[in-house]
């Protein structure tokens, strides 16, 4: 197995030369991030798993066509976002949520502490309820808005990189974020009042 320091471009070169273990290393390296991206757009673990297999298979087949104009991460994110948006559009409203477990570390997160403390103390905030409300709200967004929210708010990607992934301008990314946040605020209004 490769050391974590091995740069992406070296692994790509070796993959092109016919070394499949180099691509395995790229899969190991990027699966958590791509999983987070796809999962937060679909809110379904099984769909995410299938899409993830397709994304990496597509990347493996197309690795010879990767010109290096952007980083491998951006290129891979582009494949994942396009596939997932197509999938979500086809799936439409026929969606079933199968949500992942929340990592126990969330209880130490300051945002979580603040969020739970700001609610009515008489009502115990349930983690599953919080997760459910957020996912419901996200699923009501359009696929493009969901992609932007996932990359910016959940994954913490900068506007410039999101713009590269989506092939749009930074202004478009900011605009989509603005409207997506406004929609989410409306959807979560009821939850915020309780």
């Amino acid at each position, binding site marked *: 197995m490769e050391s974590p320091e091995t740069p992406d471009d070296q692994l790509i070169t070796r993959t092109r030369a016919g070394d499949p273990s180099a691509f395995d290393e790229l899969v190991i390296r990027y699966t958590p991030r791509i999983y987070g991206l796809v999962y937060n757009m679909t809110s379904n673990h099984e769909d995410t798993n299938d899409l993830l297999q397709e994304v990496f298979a597509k990347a493996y087949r197309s690795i010879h066509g990767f010109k290096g104009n952007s980083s491998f991460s951006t290129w891979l994110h582009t494949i994942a976002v396009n596939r997932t948006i197509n999938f979500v559009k086809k799936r439409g409203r026929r969606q079933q949520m199968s949500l992942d477990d929340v*990592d126990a570390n969330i209880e130490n997160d300051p945002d979580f502490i603040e969020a739970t403390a700001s609610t009515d103390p008489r009502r115990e905030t349930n983690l599953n309820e919080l997760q459910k409300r957020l996912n419901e709200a996200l699923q009501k967004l359009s696929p493009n808005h969901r992609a932007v929210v996932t990359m910016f708010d959940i994954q913490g990607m900068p506007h410039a990189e999101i713009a590269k992934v989506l092939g749009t301008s930074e202004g478009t990314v900011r605009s989509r974020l603005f409207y997506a946040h406004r929609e989410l605020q409306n959807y*979560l209004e009821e939850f915020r009042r309780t």
Partner: protein
Amino acid sequence: MSDESDIQKLLRLKRYEQPPEGYYEDFLREFQRRQRAEVLKSSVWEIVWDRLGHILPDFRVPAYAYAAIGFMAVAASSFILTTGEVNTQIAARPSGDAAVTFDLNSKAAGLTQPVPIPTTRMVGTLPPHYVLQPRPAVKDEPYRF
């Protein structure tokens, strides 16, 4: 939670949602299994076509190859034109009004000269032929004024 920043904080908490333990290791094994199955399933032509699709866009023809192809094209054209002229001269030998002449076993047939074959042009040069009745076909008396 009353403004946009609160929404963003709430969204950031979603990064704590994780797949079941051991998922990533299983995912890699499943990926490798599918890749092997795909390679076994695909035909030789699919693999060759796939490889060509990746190689051809990067294929660069050296400059001298264009010159060599051009030279060969000129040489082939001049050869064809030269051969064509010889054939034309043979076909254009003087043979009277006959468009085509041939000499089949002239010695055996007792012929020493090529036999001209009549053409439509020769037939068309004959004067028109009319047959006139010695008497008019109408037997009525002619009018007298």
